[in-house]
């Protein structure tokens, strides 16, 4: 490994430490997948119990999230962000990326076009996330491509527009959160090596 690579890695991980704490995203992925399975034929749970299960999962995520934060602080240490360093990212995220992602969902829900607009928009969103949080994790490239794949599935008639498409979308998105989160965590464990605390 070259010195430049090592230095870049130190900079990227330190300045985007929060986003590399992959286990934070896993519970969210479970909720998104449960949302995707809700009211579908694929769901293993009776309709009556689905909403209750979803509510329980949301409560669980709310409780787990700070605990996962504590786990990372105790096991890997703590980093405080430089608030000025990410101003551009935050501005782009709230003013451009999130509104476009929501708009694409609204278009697909309301107008049900033949082309699943959400696919390329969320593909770009994931790529923007990857670029702005330190790159280095190739699984986000595959994740973004899978969003494009969803548009292809609808375009070629493998998935029906509307409800079925959104279930598939939520399942894929949930899987991205879970798998991406686990791989982020593995990457962080590789970079932040275990230490002898004695």
């Amino acid at each position, binding site marked *: 490994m070259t010195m430049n690579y090592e*230095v870049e890695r130190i900079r990227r991980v330190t*300045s985007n430490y929060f986003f590399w704490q992959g286990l934070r995203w896993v519970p969210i992925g479970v909720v998104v997948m449960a949302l995707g399975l809700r009211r579908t034929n694929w769901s293993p749970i009776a309709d009556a119990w689905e909403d209750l299960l979803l509510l329980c999962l949301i409560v669980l995520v709310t409780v787990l999230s700070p605990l996962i934060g504590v786990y990372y602080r105790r096991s*890997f240490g703590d980093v405080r*962000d430089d*608030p000025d*360093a990410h101003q551009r990212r935050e501005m782009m995220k709230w003013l451009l990326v999130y509104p476009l992602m929501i708009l694409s969902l609204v278009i697909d829900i309301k107008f049900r076009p033949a082309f699943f607009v959400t696919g390329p928009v969320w593909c770009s969103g994931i790529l923007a996330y990857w670029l702005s949080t330190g790159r280095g994790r190739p699984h986000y490239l595959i994740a973004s491509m899978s969003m494009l794949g969803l548009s292809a599935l609808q375009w070629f008639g493998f998935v029906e527009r509307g409800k079925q498409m959104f279930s598939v979308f939520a399942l894929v998105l949930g899987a991205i959160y879970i798998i991406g989160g686990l791989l982020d965590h593995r990457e962080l464990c590789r970079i932040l090596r275990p*230490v002898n605390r004695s």
Partner: protein
Amino acid sequence: MKPPFKSLAELDRMIHDPSRLAILTALSSCRSADFLYLQRLTGLSKGNLSSHLAKLEDAGLVSIEKGYVAKTPMTTLSLTKEGRSGIERHWKRLDQLRASALQWQPEG
């Protein structure tokens, strides 16, 4: 123009030591980081990291704050103003040296 290897000798050794360079580079990418994070990032032992941090503190490049979080002792490190400008200057110098080393031709 001096050959690049001669300029290498003029680099600030306090900053250029690999472990201290890693510590300062990490701290330049955030507002502050704790001892455990730096230890995991650099792979240094507790004693080695403490010794490097003490040197950096003595040189006025790093500020060390000791406190408690939920009754657990926590040491927080951050760059001083001099530390931040020092590491930025150092990286700029290294980039210049790298560029000139690529262009350099031996005389004769």
